[in-house]
């Protein structure tokens, strides 16, 4: 076995775990996750010679994964509801409606044990526009390190805050409509 194959075999052993679970988080589907991670390793195998150890192996593989995920989303998903902030705020920047005042009636600690709620949550996440969804998921995947999310997605920090703000507005609305029965 040449050095390239040897390295790739090692990397498969070391990084499959991280890559698969990251992919699963980003894609929410096991088969898609397996397919995409397999493609990551194939890409790594093919472009092995262009990897010159400038970053760590893990960083490099994760970067390939993120590209593949973005590509996957571009192909597979439609652009969905892109709700402008004007839906929530008037021209003065004040809340338009009072629905935000109604508290959620359930303890959030236990909500995630409920598989129905989990499904609603996942559906609401997937309704976010693609160009927000990846930064948002990465933000949680990278344990809220804004700088690295920005670096990987090419989004500016200012825009990342805006994306998080808008996604949050949309997620709240979706959860309240589909679960908490607030409208």
């Amino acid at each position: 076995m040449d050095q390239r194959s040897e390295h790739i075999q090692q990397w498969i052993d070391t990084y499959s775990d991280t890559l698969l679970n990251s992919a699963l988080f980003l894609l929410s589907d096991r088969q898609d996750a397996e397919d995409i991670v397999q493609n990551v390793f194939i890409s790594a195998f093919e472009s092995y010679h262009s990897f010159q150890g400038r970053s760590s192996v893990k960083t490099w593989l994760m970067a390939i994964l993120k590209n593949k995920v973005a590509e996957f989303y571009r192909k597979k998903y439609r652009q969905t509801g892109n709700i402008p902030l004007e839906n929530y705020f008037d021209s003065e920047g004040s809340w338009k409606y009072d629905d935000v005042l109604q508290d959620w009636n359930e303890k959030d600690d236990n909500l995630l044990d409920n598989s129905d709620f989990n499904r609603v949550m996942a559906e609401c996440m997937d309704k976010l526009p693609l160009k927000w969804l990846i930064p948002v998921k990465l933000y949680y995947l990278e344990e809220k390190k804004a700088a690295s999310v920005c670096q990987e997605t090419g989004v500016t920090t200012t825009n990342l805050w805006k994306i998080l703000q808008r996604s949050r507005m949309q997620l709240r609305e979706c959860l309240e409509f589909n679960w908490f029965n607030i409208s």
Partner: protein
Amino acid sequence: MISQAMIKQLIHILVMPCKQATLLIEQQNAGEIPFFQKIRLRLHLMICKWCSAYNRKVHAMESMMKKIFTQDAPKKFSKNELELFKDKLKDKLK
């Protein structure tokens, strides 16, 4: 002497629009909010019941998101699945 106009101005600076406060909430959560903005946000949340209700929901969503990613089963690949995947792939890339 502090004039009426200055007081008004001061309130305007401190009490920012909700649209901006909700943006600062995100920065606050990421631990990347500048000091002065942090104080403005705190003041805003003290007097604005809308944003403070919203803030509570943001916190609830935050702990859900965190839990979704840290919870083990069944969202993660099992040891068996992992080994199977590795073997299959290693075979392919020999």
